[in-house]
């Protein structure tokens, strides 16, 4: 609390501004990344995971 009550030095405000702007940029980047992901999603999606029983798999490929 001691530090919070002290008068802010200009560099402190600049620093917190910079931190906030960096964070905002990253969030904007996340939205861009999500938008790109969203464009990839089509109504028909490919299987992302396949778990096979080896023996059954061999029989299936016969």
């Amino acid at each position, binding site marked *: 609390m001691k530090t919070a009550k002290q008068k802010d030095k200009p560099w402190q*405000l600049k620093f917190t501004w910079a931190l906030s702007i960096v*964070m905002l940029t*990253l969030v904007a980047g996340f939205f861009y990344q999500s938008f790109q992901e969203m464009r990839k999603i089509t109504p028909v999606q490919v299987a992302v995971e*396949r778990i096979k029983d080896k023996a*059954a798999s061999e*029989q*299936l490929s016969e």
Partner: protein
Amino acid sequence: MTDSIEVDPPSGEIPEEPSQGFPWRGVLEGCAWALLVAAFVIGQIAAKPDYAGMLAKALPDEVLTRSENNTILPFVFQIQGKDDVVIISDGEGYGGPLVVGIRARRTEDGGRLAEVLMLSHKETPAFMERLRRGKFFPQFGGKDVIDNFIVGDDIDVVSGASVSSKGFTKAVRDAVHQGAVSQLGLEPTWQQPGWSLGLNEALLVTLIVLAFYAGYRKDKLAKIAKPTVMIGALLFVGFYANASLSLSSLAGIIMGYIPDLREHPMWWIMIIGVFGSVVVMGRNIYCQQLCPFMVVQDLAQKISGVKLRIDHRFQKRARTLIFFMSWVALMLIFLSAHPALGSYEPFAMMFSLEGLGIQWYILPASLLGAFFVPRFWCRLFCPVGLYLNEMVRLRRRVLGWFSGRKVGEG
């Protein structure tokens, strides 16, 4: 539009005076709401799954014929020229539904699970990564169709992704057992999943009760309860269960992605505890006590001992900023019907250390912020905190309206 309610929104923004000119703010808010509704409707129409198409993509060499005409899952498909059946079913993950296709085949002594295909999922990437790394999927290989397929019984849960583990298992179980009865003609000898109530659920209830107590009382017990809840929130809600509330949890509820009560009581306990506290008590116990990321930020603050202040101009606009960010996030979520796509919070990643792309930078940046600015994330970026506090505010307004007194009195 002004009122005198003091709820401490995460941003601490001071309500603005009403403008005398053209109501731009109202028009903008109206447009934002209309766009959200439109995105929701479009997303729901576009996201209608084409199960036959999914299977055709997953099994390109097979000719599949739908063998039943039921309208709800599970759907059964016959593979032409083979004795196999493929059955599609779904389960609820933490971020949304998981659609699974299983391939079952008759054997001399019954039937066997020959293949499991995850056809689509809307799960938070961190949880999917956890399942993959936790060797969760290989457990299903070669299982008998009359096995129980119950997490905690014949399937091991992956800690930190228990909702996803159970959702995936439920989808496989429904499909396999449907095939066993309707296609292979087997008698149901397997166990039905019961209520999944145990130590974890008891711990969460205890934490919520203690959080209530610590929020209301100021006696000795309350003094002990507060740090206990914080430690519990960090270790149990955060690192063990990874059950933080996020924008995707809230959006998932709106889209009807609600996990089964019997199998995911922890999800229900958390939701009922948090929203119940808002509706019944008018308190946001989640942000004040239960949020594990808040505890992480407080720890970072304690370590650094530095308490820088945010420029008041930025702080003043933080509430509007969070609304805007969450609006963009909700647009993405509703359009894609995929809650994880809009969840920009670092919570899931913090407690699983799994993430994708830019999430790897959001987490350290938010921790760095918390190192210098008390509750940096909560105050400037957290949509959950803002919405919960807005609900508290709304509750006060409604109560004030019902009691016929001026809002903010008493």
